[in-house]
C-alpha cells in the first residue's frame, strides 16, 4: 500500500506531465467521431466489388 501510495503521489504530483496528453486524447476522440461521420468514400469501393 505504501508503494502504491507513493506511486500515486508521484503521479499526482506530476499532473503537468500527464494531463496534457489525456486532455488532447479526449479532444481527439470527439474530433475523430465528428470527422468520420458520413463515410462518403465507400461508394468508390463498392464500384469494384
Amino acid at each position, binding site marked *: 500500500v505504501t508503494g502504491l501510495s507513493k506511486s500515486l503521489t508521484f*503521479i499526482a504530483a506530476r499532473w503537468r506531465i500527464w494531463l496534457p*496528453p489525456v486532455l488532447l486524447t479526449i479532444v481527439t*476522440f470527439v474530433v*475523430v467521431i465528428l470527422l*468520420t461521420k458520413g463515410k462518403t*468514400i465507400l*461508394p468508390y469501393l*463498392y*464500384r469494384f*466489388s
Partner: protein
Amino acid sequence: MQDRAPQSVERDRLSLNRKGIRVSYTVPGASYRRSDRWERKPASCGIAARRRSEERAVEAVSFSPILLASLRIADGSLRYCSIPDATDPHHPYVAYELPNGPGRTCLTADRRPIMVGARASPGARKAEMRRVKRILADVTLFIVTCAMCLAALEFGFRAYSRVPLFELVDWRSRHVTAIKAAPWLRYDAVLGNTAKSDFSSPSWSTIDYGIRKNHASDQAIRTGGILAVGDSFTAGSGVSGAESWPAQLEDLVGVPVINAGMGGYGIDQMVLQAELLLPIVRPKVVVLGSELGIVTTGYSSFTWAKPYFTLQDGKLVVHNEPVPLPGTQSKPIGYLERILSYSYVVDQLMTKYAPLDWFSDNDQQWVRVPIDDVEVSCALLRRLKGDVEAYGARLVVLLQHGGNSNRKEEPEEDILVARCTRAMGVTVVDEYNTLHALAEHHPEEFESLNFRDRDSGAYGHMTAKGNRLVAGLVAAALRELPPSVSPPPGETVQDVSDEARNPLPLPEDLERVTPTTYAKLVILDSTSGRGKVYRLLAAGGASTGHFIQLPMPKDLPAAIYAFSLQVRRAHAQLRLQLVDGKNNGASADYDLQQASAGGIDRLGRGQRLAAAAEPIADGWVRISLTAQLPEAGAHMIVQLLDHDGRTVFPAAGEAVELRDLEVRSSYAVSASNAGVVK
C-alpha cells in the same frame, strides 16, 4: 605555482570577454589565488582555445556555432566550462563546473561578472544525480501516458463504432481485398482492364468480348440492337445479369441490349469501349451510362492504370497508350503505413479524407491528372457522337446518381456535362430529378431502389427495382428519339454490307488463295465443327521473316478494321499486322503461352489501335487487332516469331494452329474524323 588540482574551491572568480575566459579561485589553505586563463582565437571549425597560464594541455576543445564551449583540462582542475554566446545579451551568464560541483556566475551588460563564485557543496554530485533521475522519471511518465492515451483512443473509437475491440486487423487491407475481388477482370492494353470472355460464376457470366449475359441463354453477341457502355451501375454490380438495367431495358423495348458496362470505367474508357464494339455489335442505339465516369476521366489510374485524354489545340490526345501493365507503377507501402493499417481510427480517417493515397499500393493506385474533367468528357462525348452517327446509330447519355440522388444539389460536373451534351443534340437521361423527388416525398420507395452498406449506411449500387426504374427512363427516352439519324455533313458512311464487314474469303478457301512464300498454311482438321483448323508453318529462309498475307479484296476503303482469329500455340509466338496500302496501321505481338498481347506499335498514321488476347477452352487463345486505317487497300499479315520473339530465324518447325479468322470493318473515315488523334 601549484601544479596539482585543487581539492575544493571556496571562492572563485570568472571573467569573460571576447578574448577568452579567465578563472580565479582560492585554494583552501593556500595563501594565494590561482588564476587560469584560456584564450579564444579563430580556428577552422570555429574557435579554438588554449590555456596560457600553465603548460598543461587542453584535452579537448570544442565550440558550437553559438559559442558553447566545452573544455576539459587534463588534470581536472576545470572540468567543464559552458560558454553561451558571450555577445548575446539573452545569454548573460556563464556556467562552469569545478572539481567539487557546478558553478555559475552572471554577467553585467558589459559582460563583467557581478556575482562571483559558486560555493561548491560536497553533496552537489548526488543532487545532480537526483535531478537526472527525476527528469528520466518524467520522460517515462510522459511516454507511458501517451501510449495509454493512444490505446484508449483506439479502443474507445472501436467501441463507439461497434467493431471488435481486441481483434488485430489490418483494416486497410480489408478494403483493398474487397476492391481486388473481381475474378472476371483482366488487363487490356487499350482499356486498362476489361471483363474476361466466356467467364462464368454464380454472380457474373459473360460472352464474347466480356459482354455480361442478360440471360443464361445468351451465347453470342446479338447485333442490330442497343449497345450499353458504362460503369458498374450499367454492368449491374450487386444484382444478377437479368436484373441489370440493360437486361430490363431489353425486356421493355424488345430489342437486344448488349451490356458492355465495366466497373470503374471513366467516360474515356466507355468511349473507347464503344468504338471497339461498334463494328462488332453494329447497334442502332448506343447508351452511355455514367455514375462517376466524369470524375474518373480525370485519373490516369483509378484502381488500375487506365487511358486518359488531354485536350491540345482543341483535339483529344490519348495518354497511357498502351496502358502500363499491372504492377509496373508500383508504390511500395512503407513500414509506417503497414503499422497504421492496424488502427481503426487511422483507417477510418484516411478512408474518408485521403482514400486514394491510403489504398494505393503495388497493384492499385489512384492518380489524378491535371485536366478539366468536364471539358474532356464533353470532347469525348462529341467524338463518340461522331462515331455513332457515322455508323448510322444514335447516342443517348444516361447520368446516374443512385442513392446520392438524395443530396440537395446534383453534382456540378453532371450538370455541366448534361448541358454540353444536350447542346450537341444528344439525348440526355438524367435520373437525378426522378430519384430526388422520390427521396423527398417517398423515402421508403427511394430506399428500396438502392443498396446500402450495413456498417456505414453509405449508398451503393442500385437494386433490381432501381434498375427497373432506370430502364424505364431510358425506354421513355428511346421512344422520343427521331426515327433515323443522318450522318452530319462532311462525313461519309460506308455501306456496311456483310461483304464489306467480313471481307476474308471463306476459311475453306483460305489455303488455296494464300501466297505461301514465307510460310505454309496447311489444313489440320476440317471436322471440328467450327470450320477448318490450319497449321501455319515457318517456311522462310534463315534471313527472312515467316509470314502470310491474307487474301483480301482489292481497294478496301479506309476504315476501322478489327482482325481476329483463334490460335493455339505449338512452337512459336505470333505477330499480327493490320495495314493499308500506304503501310499505315498497327502491329502487335502476342505471347500465346501467357495469352496476352505483349505490345502494340503504331505504323505510320494508324489510329485507334487496340490489341487483345484472351484464353478460350482447350488451349485456344482469341487474339484481335484493331486499327483505323487512313488509306484504302487494307490487308492483314500473320507472322511467326521464334521462342525469343525474333522475326528472322532459320525455320526449325515453328508453327501455330489457327481457326476462325475474321475481319470486320466499320465505316469510312471522313475528313473531319481523320484529324482526331487517339
